[in-house]
């Protein structure tokens, strides 16, 4: 068990390192560098940058050097906890990302809780009452949930809350708190804003998880051990919750691993539509501006989070699945 955990952690470290190299290389792939992008941006607004100025900027950020030298310098500083300075914002990367990373995590976690909280009971209901009216209704809801893109849903919700409720949904804070420092009032404000985007983000995944849970549970319900439990005189509700549901839980654990990366990269459009202060939109901007250090740091963070998420999901899986636990030893 301990050997397994250490092995997984070391493997995770190697994975993160590989991710950092790959992401650095990929960000470099498109022609041009930050200075080119910067010049293009300025000329679009009418001003120009002199050749000397450009050279000085390249010098400052070390952009003229071969890519492996740039990577080496960057990663050497990253290991020491210095993520460099964002070229576009001219501020330390950590400061630019700031609270966004925690807000993204909070949003992921809320979406995960909502996904589980809805998918578990609905999946159980749909399987146990297969072909009932409720099952058909949830199936319909599920296919709509899978088919409708999140951002469209976000737009619809925004439209109706604006026209019907005269409320402006969007963002995670109201205007008063947007720039204010953290206080009890701001936390409360966040709590009030959190549910709606969390639900919108959770919906697609929920619909999918319901389908998986229903299919798994239908399989499990037919297994002989369910008959064994009934033959012991256990009440039907307890039979189902204790045995087949337990056996069908695995997908819930695997869900943890994918949620965070999904939330950052898969839901950028929703975040932009809803004006969520998460990492996703920041990454898009950084990539467009070829802001190396900011983009690199975000991708690196994503990698770390994915590795941690996978690790946690493996631990949860081992907890729900005794057979896995025993294969370890």
């Amino acid at each position: 068990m301990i050997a397994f955990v250490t092995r997984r952690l070391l493997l995770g470290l190697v994975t993160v390192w590989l991710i950092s190299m790959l992401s650095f290389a990929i960000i470099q792939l498109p022609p041009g560098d930050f200075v080119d992008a910067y010049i293009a941006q300025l000329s679009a607004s009418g001003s120009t940058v002199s050749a000397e100025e450009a050279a000085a900027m390249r010098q400052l950020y070390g952009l003229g050097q071969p890519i492996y030298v740039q990577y080496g310098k960057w990663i050497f500083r990253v290991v020491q906890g210095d993520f460099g300075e964002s070229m576009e914002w001219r501020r330390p990367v950590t400061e630019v990302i700031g609270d966004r990373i925690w807000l993204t995590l909070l949003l992921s976690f809320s979406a995960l809780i909502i996904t589980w909280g809805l998918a578990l009971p609905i999946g159980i209901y749909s399987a146990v009452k297969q072909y009932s009216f409720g099952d058909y209704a949830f199936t319909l809801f599920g296919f709509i949930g899978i088919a409708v893109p999140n951002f469209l849903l976000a737009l619809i919700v925004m439209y109706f809350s604006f026209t019907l409720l005269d409320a402006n949904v969007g963002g995670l804070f109201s205007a008063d708190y947007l720039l204010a420092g953290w206080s009890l009032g701001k936390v409360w404000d966040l709590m009030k804003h959190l549910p709606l985007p969390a639900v919108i983000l959770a919906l697609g995944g929920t619909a999918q998880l319901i389908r998986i849970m229903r299919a798994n549970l239908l399989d499990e319900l037919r297994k002989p051990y369910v008959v064994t439990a009934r033959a012991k005189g256990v009440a039907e509700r307890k039979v189902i919750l204790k045995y087949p549901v337990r056996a069908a839980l695995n997908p819930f654990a695997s869900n943890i691993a994918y949620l965070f990366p999904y939330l950052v990269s898969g839901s950028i459009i929703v975040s932009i539509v809803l004006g969520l202060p998460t990492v996703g939109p920041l990454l898009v901007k950084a990539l467009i501006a070829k802001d190396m250090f900011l983009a690199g740091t975000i991708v690196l963070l994503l990698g770390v989070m994915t590795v941690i998420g996978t690790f946690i999901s493996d631990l949860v899986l081992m907890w729900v699945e005794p057979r896995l636990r025993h294969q370890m030893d």
Partner: protein
Amino acid sequence: MVEPILSVRGLQTRFFGTEGTVRAVDGVDFDVYEGRTLGVVGESGCGKSVTARSVLGIVDRPGKVVGGEAWLTRADGSRVDLFRLPEADMRKVRGREIALVFQEPMASFSQHYTIGNQIAESILLHMGVDEAAARKRAIELLDMVGVPQPDRRVDEYPFQLSGGLRQRVMIAMALACDPRVLIADEPTTALDVTTQAQILDLLRHLQQQRGLAIILITHDMGVIAEMAHDVAVMYLGRAVETGPVADIFARPQHPYTRALLRSIPTVMAKPRTRLPTIAGSIPHPFNRPQGCAFNPRCSESLGAVCAAHEPPAVTADGHEVRCFIHGGQP
């Protein structure tokens, strides 16, 4: 005459599928007595397992018991018809008065809980004791069925045990609340010959010790000869012949029973001779033949009468048989 512990009359169970209704069990009668074993034998698909589940009221949907009675004599001497018992009372019969042992010990256990947990479950449910006492009893039960190191094994998971041990644990689980009737649905089919003999020995031993009434479901006439006191031969949802084991083996009355007995290999047979088989194959339960269900495969068919009418039960040579060659009015 001793009263049977369990007396089933005219049991009918049907599956109402979308493509039609399957008459899985279609009029089965049998009696089980304290300290005796009733062997239920018949080809695959003839309704043995469904009969067992019907008695306990745990037939899977879309199946339903549609007719018949199952009279259980309780410990206090009162008699109840299980098919008219409310669900809540029926739950007190399951595991407490009638327990089941299944064919596949691996699939019949949940792999997510320890065997101790699964044994203790019915103890906690029926015996009104606390968890420590239930665990203690689980260990005693494991010891009783011959599981070595029961105090260690109790915390293991089913996948950590061998097939033979698993079936012993299954028996321990069934006996957890001292039931008076044990239904064993092909308890040894998945096991090798040596283990099979051990498990049958164990069942016999437990029966002698506790006066257990056993319904032993099998398609193996050899197991019947070794274990059963009484036999019910089933064909396509019916008990076609019932009686004491010695009678059935010495003087089988139904053509199907005779055919079954002819198909058992014996050590006396000349080597490399083909065993006789029963001609034809079992009809699909959807298109059950008119009249006697065995008629299309029967070598002793009387023709028109067998094809048109269901034979009623008649007594021939001391036991009950459903066949027109022994008389009976259509």
